[in-house]
């Protein structure tokens, strides 16, 4: 009887203290100019695993800040964390950290260290959401990470020269990363992936980046969907990567002598579906690209729609719309190992007597004139001349110089509804 009652009190006490501990976990730590704690650095030091720190509006100049605990950082009224153009700002070394609702500004430019506004190194999980990044060297930098999500951030830099700005979102040696709904403006590369596998880049908007809107290097089995790439040095470069799925993206207004909508270099077994290419100097340039399918895309008013180099083998270009491009297809060789099937070509002038929706006369999309330019760029000045038109027509009837095998046997009479 006696022992029982002791046990009862004991258990009641234990239960009560457990509730207390639980409560203290749930109690967030507040930081702010009007709070007891005014230093974010102190708050991070005081926090323990599982804590939430709520940071109130104001400017915090305590960079660099290191996070080595599994915590949640929430910004209230978008507090600003300022790198004072000298430091990196936030360095995360623990798994599952959440960073939400902040303004990060002025991570310092450096020639030898990759200063970033937010850097995650060697972690699993984590979420960077709903932040604004202004005028930082690197924006968000992930190294050796897995399963991190980067969502709803606005990343802006006003880089004038490439050397003064680095990448907006930089992913290195990581896997299973999600980059979604971000805006990246005015960095070197908007979004950069190097040695990143099984990751997704969706619904992002990149504009005015000095090099590429999106840049893949040595990154396999990734996909990027529903993004818009506008007015970047070049839209997207996918290099030395295999099995990349590119779908429903918009590549627009990438003009310039070395500018592309999409540059493919050493790519295997990739898929390019349902994209929109408009107003680019070259919509797609393919070099060392093999066994890749380009299907259901719209190519509208580009200088060159598809530029396919001789070292590209076994690609299939089918059921696309080619509308009002100066050159639908250009190449640097008479031979071709890729097939063109059932595309709609606005410059096709054949007829369809069989009534199956496909022209009865095969279409040769490579203009003789494009070969002339290949050899002598200055000949471009003759672009709209009657002489060139006559040459092109003659060549289409009797192909002598243009690649004979590069032909669409079934040119579509009417546009595909895409």
């Amino acid at each position, binding site marked *: 009887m006696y022992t029982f009652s002791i046990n009862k009190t004991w258990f009641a006490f234990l239960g009560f203290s457990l509730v207390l501990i639980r409560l203290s976990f749930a109690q967030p730590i507040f930081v702010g100019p009007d709070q007891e704690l005014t230093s974010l650095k102190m708050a991070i030091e005081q926090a323990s695993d599982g804590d939430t720190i709520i940071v109130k509006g104001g400017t915090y100049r305590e960079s660099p800040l290191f996070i080595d605990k599994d915590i949640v950082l929430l910004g209230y009224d978008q507090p600003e964390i300022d790198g004072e153009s000298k430091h990196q700002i936030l360095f995360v070394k623990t798994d599952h950290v959440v960073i939400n609702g902040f303004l990060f500004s002025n991570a310092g430019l450096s*020639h*030898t260290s*990759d200063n970033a506004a937010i850097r995650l190194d060697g972690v699993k999980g984590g979420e960077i959401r709903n932040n604004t990044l202004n005028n930082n060297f690197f924006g968000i930098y992930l190294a050796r990470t897995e399963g991190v999500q980067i969502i709803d951030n606005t990343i802006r830099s006003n880089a004038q*020269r*490439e*050397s003064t700005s680095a990448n907006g979102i930089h992913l*290195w040696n990581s896997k299973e990363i999600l980059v979604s709904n971000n805006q990246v403006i005015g960095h*070197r590369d908007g979004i950069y992936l*190097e*040695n990143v596998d099984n990751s997704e880049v969706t619904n992002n908007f990149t504009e005015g980046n*000095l*090099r*590429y809107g999106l840049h893949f*290097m*040595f990154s396999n089995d990734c996909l990027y969907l529903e993004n818009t790439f506008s007015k970047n*040095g*070049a839209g997207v*470069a996918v*290099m030395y990567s295999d099995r990349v799925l590119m779908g429903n993206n918009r590549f627009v207004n990438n003009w*310039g*002598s*070395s500018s592309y909508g999409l*540059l493919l*270099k050493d790519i295997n077994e990739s898929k390019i579906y349902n994209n929109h290419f408009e107003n680019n100097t070259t919509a797609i*340039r393919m*070099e060392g690209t093999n066994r890749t399918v380009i299907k259901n895309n719209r190519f509208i008013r580009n200088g060159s729609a598809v530029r396919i180099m001789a070292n590209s083998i076994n690609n299939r270009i089918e059921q696309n719309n080619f509308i009002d491009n100066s050159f639908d297809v250009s190449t640097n060789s008479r031979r071709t190992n890729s097939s063109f099937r059932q595309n709609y070509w606005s410059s096709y002038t054949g007829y369809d007597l069989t009534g199956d929706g496909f022209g009865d006369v095969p279409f040769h999309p490579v203009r003789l004139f494009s070969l002339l330019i290949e050899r002598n760029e200055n000949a471009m000045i003759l672009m709209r001349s009657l002489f060139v038109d006559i040459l092109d027509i003659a060549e289409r009837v009797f192909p002598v110089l243009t690649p004979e095998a590069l032909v669409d046997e079934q040119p579509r009479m009417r546009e595909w509804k895409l």
Partner: protein
Amino acid sequence: MKTILLLLTFGTLVFLYGCEPERQDIFYGEEECTHCNMIISEPKFSSQLLTNKGKYYNFDSIECLAGFITSKSLPTEDIHSAWVISFNSENWVLAQDAHYLKSGNLQSPMSLNLSAYSNLEVAKEYQRNYTGEILSWNDIQNFVHKEWNN
């Protein structure tokens, strides 16, 4: 008459001497790497090759310059000189006179992580700070050749 001829010959010689190929400025952010087609964006890694005819090729990294040379894209006898940028000062140096550091902590555009230094002491200082291995221009060419299999 003889003097005029002499003057003319001399003049032509001086003129021809003036035609020695010269290193050209790279327009960063606009020009492409000859080897990998990437837009050249970081001066501290960029490099350049001059031919005897005065043509020049720009590269975004030291590995691309070495790769271009070892892949024999250009006959060796046509090459006039190869130039790299000193990582610390951003001055141009002849490739064979430079010292190189291969360090994973200094990531170059084509990810072989090579940087160049005009001065061996500086290279060693960077090696102390960033770890890695110091290489010569010959080592670099062999390394890139092996790494890229070209």
